[in-house]
């Protein structure tokens, strides 16, 4: 069991990025078939199959800790909340998906975090502007000749180029200043904001 756990952790941590972690729906365990085996180590289509990692390391740890506490608990798919079912029926478990506590919507934006995310946004914006304008300038002629609506769009929105140019200039300058500040903070410890 320990070796399969270790293998699973190895596999899931190195190969599987977190975005591919599959969300499991709420599963109610069937009443009799799984309880009869008191041995928590079941093979086959169970979770400890190292070839199809379904649990991330923390979930593995979560399950393992709970299994160690009570070897009669069945292992579960997804997050291992092993809430007891009805009273009096020993061993019946429900596997419930735990919710994730709210993060982005509720967290108060602060000066330091706002500056940091603006740096990232300006960087992404500059990247798209750069690539897009490059591609556009190369292909503008043939595009406009083939798609007349495109030509109409560019004709009428020509005045907006100045606006977008100044927005990109703002993004460029902000990104550069933040980059210099980052360098100074890391190398010379200049400009680190005071705590509280």
């Amino acid at each position, binding site marked *: 069991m320990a070796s399969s756990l270790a293998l699973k952790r190895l596999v899931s*941590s190195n190969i599987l990025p*977190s975005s591919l972690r599959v969300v499991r729906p*709420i599963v109610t365990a069937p009443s009799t078939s799984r309880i009869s085996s008191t041995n928590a180590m079941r093979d086959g289509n169970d979770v400890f199959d190292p070839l199809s990692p379904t649990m*991330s*390391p*923390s979930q593995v*740890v*979560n399950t393992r*800790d709970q299994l160690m506490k009570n070897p009669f608990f069945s292992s579960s798919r997804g*997050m291992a*909340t092993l*809430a007891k079912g009805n009273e009096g029926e020993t061993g019946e478990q429900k596997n*419930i*998906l*735990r*919710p*994730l*506590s*709210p*993060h*982005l919507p*509720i*967290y*108060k934006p*602060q000066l*330091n*975090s706002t500056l*940091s*995310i603006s740096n990232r946004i300006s960087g992404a914006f500059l990247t798209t502007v750069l690539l897009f304008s490059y591609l556009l300038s190369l292909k503008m002629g043939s595009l406009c000749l083939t798609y007349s609506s495109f030509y109409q769009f560019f004709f009428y929105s020509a005045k907006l180029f100045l606006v977008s140019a100044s927005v990109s200039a703002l993004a460029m300058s902000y990104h550069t200043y933040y980059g210099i500040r*980052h360098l100074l*903070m*890391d*190398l010379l*410890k200049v400009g*680190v*904001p005071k*705590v*509280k």
Partner: protein
Amino acid sequence: MATSLIRRAMNVTSRVSSSTVAPASRLVLVRPYASEAEAQKVEPKAAASTNMKTFQIYRWNPDNPAKPQLQDYKIDLKECGPMVLDALIKIKNEIDPSLTFRRSCREGICGSCAMNINGCNGLACLTKIESGSSETTITPLPHMFVIKDLVVDMTNFYNQYKSIEPWLKRKNPPPTAGKEIPQSKKDRAKLDGMYECILCACCSTSCPSYWWNPESYLGPAALLHANRWISDSRDEYTKERLDAVNDEYKLYRCHTILNCARACPKGLNPGKQIQHIKQLQLTG
């Protein structure tokens, strides 16, 4: 001393005069302090008005799993202690006993009551209730799996702390066998700002980088402790500790967002410690 002498004299005279004298007549005597009868009098409530405040608290029950909700509770601040933890305990005692939260020391040293209050992470026992009629929103620590109501699963956080091996490691025995390893005051001062960490997880759960990579990025708390052991002059495994952390994900997911320093209820600066580790990596 003079007053006690006078008091004793008056007591003697009043006792001698008459035992049937009504207690109220005693109050007529000139005294610079209250008598026992006066002290027993209870003053009526200072004001009949109440100061109600609404608390919106995150609720989720694993026994009846449904969408998590924010539930409103009204508390009279005049009958409640100043801290958010006092309000939570009052709600649990008087209004809703099913409200679940962790707490222990009520003085900001155990780190159990860490939660998100009005958008900022902090300890409930150290966060004052904001005066004014605005609502206070209390949610659990951000981006953690919720076990029930305000209780979150801290397993991953503790395992990350374990993974940096937070104990003294030496290759050689101490210079004086059987005695403690000596450390100068200057070296001990290097640990200030790191040893005070109570592992409340306020900093790690305030870091957006930790939100998006909770299992690969160690988080400010674990890295602060990593720096604590790296900077300890008695520890001889400095190079190995630095190499263990020198990973694209474990250390370098930190982009100096510095939400951690703002959230720490003990006033520590994990961001600064992480920068220290990064500098040490540079200089080898």
